[in-house]
């Protein structure tokens, strides 16, 4: 019974936390892009405009909910939910800290330490495309359908290098559990480098980050919603909170993917060369590990924003050819080399 209670608290905490991060990210994105572009951005609501997401939320909630006359009503309603739900669920298997001891009880800072965490991420991540396709189709708008189709093709193509890049990580650590992968990354590698995934998988990391951008529909892979070509892609016809769910889902996806990057390649909650558990109390250690993990995640979240406002957008066929002609061969090569090296060392 107690285990249930703990699990529930963790779930509620991580949902709320993700929500807060996603809302804050909309503000960071707007302020950050403004700073990059020599502007100020929203700075009126609250100090530094930090309450802007709240204002946006109120606006989205109170706006009239318009359903196009010729839209397929059920699909139209289903789309945003199908997009947002997997985005929220994916975080369940990612460890957001090491462990914390409260009342003599050790609690792992992870909603569920599933031993197939990897497969869960892959499966849930691929689900979100349904939300886009269903929404695009249900809108009964040519631009929406184009956006939906672009998204499908893109996700199917990039799922392969994404999976292959992950597979190399699995080969190295020999486990599917994300928590165990992080635990493996303690200490040093080759004597002087932190024992992080990125130093064992440099090519794999580049492949992973490129495909992650594609999975998250971010620039330079934001073709499904390329606003200058196909208006707003799959969410052309959406308004009010339905649109809000799509936008929200995107940021939650970003958060999940950033956390995944930290987990796999940047040592999770480890600080290089320092073992925090040695000199911190159990409670302080739990909080510190959580914060370290979060700060690392923040960097990747910011990278999403930073890249978005720096590079132009690909064209549809170029994304395809990049995926199939460059990334998949590279991912296969990476997998092969990894397997070979692992075989040598064992």
């Amino acid at each position, binding site marked *: 019974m107690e285990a249930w209670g703990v699990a529930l608290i963790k779930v509620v905490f991580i949902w709320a936390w993700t929500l807060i991060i996603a809302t804050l990210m909309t503000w960071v994105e707007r302020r950050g892009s403004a700073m990059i572009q020599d*502007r100020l951005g929203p700075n009126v609501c609250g100090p530094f405009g930090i309450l802007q997401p709240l204002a946006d939320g109120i606006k989205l909630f109170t706006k009239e909910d318009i359903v196009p006359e010729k839209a397929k009503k059920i699909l139209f309603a289903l789309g945003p939910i199908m997009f947002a739900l997997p985005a929220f669920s994916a975080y369940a298997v990612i460890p957001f800290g090491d462990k914390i001891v409260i009342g003599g009880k050790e609690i792992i800072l992870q909603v569920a330490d599933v031993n197939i965490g990897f497969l869960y991420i892959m499966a849930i991540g691929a689900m979100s495309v349904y939300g886009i396709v269903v929404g695009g189709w249900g809108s009964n708008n040519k631009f929406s359908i184009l956006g939906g189709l672009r998204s499908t093709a893109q996700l199917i193509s990039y799922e392969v290098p994404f999976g292959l890049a992950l597979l190399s990580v699995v080969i190295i650590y020999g486990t599917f559990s994300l928590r165990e992968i992080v635990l493996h990354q303690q200490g040093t590698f080759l004597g002087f480098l932190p024992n992080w995934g990125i130093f064992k998988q440099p090519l794999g990391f580049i492949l992973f980050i490129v495909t992650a951008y594609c999975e998250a529909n971010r620039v330079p892979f934001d073709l499904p919603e390329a606003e200058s070509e196909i208006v707003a892609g799959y969410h052309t016809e959406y308004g009010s909170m339905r649109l809000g769910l799509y936008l929200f889902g995107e940021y939650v996806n970003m958060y999940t993917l950033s956390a995944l990057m930290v987990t796999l390649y940047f040592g999770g909650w480890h600080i290089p060369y320092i073992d925090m558990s040695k000199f911190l109390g159990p409670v302080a250690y739990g909080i510190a590990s959580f914060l370290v993990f979060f700060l690392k995640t923040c960097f990747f979240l910011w990278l999403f924003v930073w890249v978005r406002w720096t590079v132009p957008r690909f064209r549809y066929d170029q994304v395809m050819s990049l995926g199939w002609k460059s990334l998949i061969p590279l991912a296969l090569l990476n997998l092969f080399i990894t397997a070979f090296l692992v075989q040598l060392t064992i």
Partner: protein
Amino acid sequence: MGKPEVKRDYTLGERLYLVEIVKGLGITWKHFMKNFRASLQKGPHTVPTCWQYPWDKREISPIFRGEHMLLLDEEGREKCVACGMCQRVCPAKCITIKRGKVKEGEEAKYAGKTYCASFEIDLLRCIFCGLCEEACNKGAIVLGQGYELADFSRQACVADKKRLIGNFLRAKEEGRLKPKRPPVPVAGAKDAKAAGPQKAKSAGGGQGKGLKRGV
């Protein structure tokens, strides 16, 4: 016909995507840091593009062509004599003037022998080209610096004489009157010298005036 074959060679750095993207990230980072520091400062207009409009307004040129004003001379008399030049020259036809004759005892109010009984400018039609200002012999109508012209009704956007003179009085109070521009030097009729070739043509029989005909 048909589209030409395009062949351009990419350098290795260009081929690899990431090199140029990282360089680009460097540029945007520089801008970010600069503006981040600027945004922490207090005071208006810390970031080059942004004026926090209702609270903080940019300096506008003293000869800005904004909302019109009708000028009074030093003795407080209306300069306008309702000659109608501005009305005639206006490309948007937004000025309507009614002329009145100055009666005995009213000389202290009006500078000329006639005056404008009503003077209306439809600011919705006006394109702020400044031709009325140029056409006015008396220097009575001048485009001022007012640019906040939005209003709730069409009628409110028609500026009448009272509002136009009010504009002048306010501008005078704030010291925002347009500086007098010196007259533009005009070339003498005789020295119509060749000031650069006006459309020189290799075979274009000179600047032939008038129409020549004949097969």
